[in-house]
């Protein structure tokens, strides 16, 4: 699957637009993403393993509910992660 990270999260994936993983479920794909970019783990997930409410996930353009992360996915599926967070930093 492809994972597309946008906005404030992109700096945590070295500003890569698309990341590709061989994963059977959305959750597995996100775990591989966080394995490659460990800082994302505390950003994407709450302590109990749920996706933090500030993020929205879309599978092929359709919004994903947090309880559907374990459903099977296909190799050509695309996950979009969008985040609405206020804040910014000085370089």
């Amino acid at each position: 699957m492809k994972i597309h990270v946008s906005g404030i999260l992109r700096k945590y994936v070295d500003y890569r637009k698309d990341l590709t993983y061989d994963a059977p479920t959305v959750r597995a794909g996100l775990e591989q993403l966080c394995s490659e970019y460990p800082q994302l783990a505390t950003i994407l997930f709450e302590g109990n393993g749920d996706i933090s409410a500030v993020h929205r996930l879309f599978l092929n353009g359709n919004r994903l509910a947090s309880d559907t992360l374990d459903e099977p996915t296909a190799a050509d599926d695309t996950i979009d992660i969008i985040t609405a967070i206020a804040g910014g930093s000085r370089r």
Partner: protein
Amino acid sequence: MNRELIGAVAADTDRRLHRLLDTRVNPGAAARDAAAAPLQAELLQEAARHGLFHCALPTNVCTGHGFAPVRWGLVLEHIGYRCTDLSFPLLVYLTAGTIRRLHHDQRTDLLEPLTDGGRLPLIGFAYTEQRDPFDFRGSLSRRGDTITVTTEKSIVAGARILDAFLTYVPDAQGRPTAVLLHRTDPGVSIAPLAVSGFRSAGFGTVRATDTAVPCDRIVDTDGLAHAQRILNAEAAFFVAAPTGRMRAIAEACAMHVAATERHDTPLADYPNVQSLLGRMHATVESCRATLYQALEAYGEDDSLWSPLSWIAKYTVGQHALTVAAMAQRLTGTQGFLDTSPCARHLRDFSGLLAGGNPQEKVEIDLGVHLTQTIRPTLREPGE
């Protein structure tokens, strides 16, 4: 929006507040701005005693009679219309919003220590560090029933006035946690901060250094979502008072040009003046319509993604400065004098660009939101 309701809310707000605004808040506006002197907290307490917050707060919370979002937005708009110091409705908005958030979190127990003698708890929102929220500095550690907090929030409205602050501090894993700190907690200090607008809102930097407080001061362990709910869903309330001020500015300009002559002709008779006033009027009414749309939709959206509320914030933020600049042009040298509020309006309205959620960030969020909303409809037929 029901015009009768607008009129009724305006009349009720005038009945409750006209004396306070006319005798205590408005007369000192220019002097407070010049000296960057904070409004007295007592003014907010007096407003509460006059029932200002009756439709802002839930039943049985600090004089509340039940939250009515449309009515509350109209109250704030009318205060902005009547009050020449926009810092006053800014503090009213902040206090009501944070109290309501604590009620929503079922944490009104945290209000009790701040309501001694029936006082309104004056609570602010301490979020900004001028860094990405995922990189917030500071620490929160827990031992037994106590948490120890170290944090620094660089730009806090009401810092020098309010009693307590909802703030956001990274825990041991780096996740921001929502915590309520009192200004009197050990290790909490507040430094004045010079700002260009809303200069009587008591802006400051709030620091907590090894501040030990009971662990029940933790409001929400998902502090980011907590903060964004305030920033997103409440955005329309943030711009309600400035919308009222824009209308007051337009009306003041209409009066000014009717009472001013050039070459023995009233300014109001010049077509270019009429045109500028017309643009100003259309701009103000467009902002009001956008604000009302957001107020009427309040609660329909996900509280973290409230496009209509964002659009209201964005639209008023974009146009308030334009209206203030139009006023400067219409009032000419009189508007340039220090006795005119024109410069103050320009400086106050500039705060709407960055305040709440920066305009450019709102543009991006709206664009992404629209793209994601429309994408499922773009599939090929039969797919």
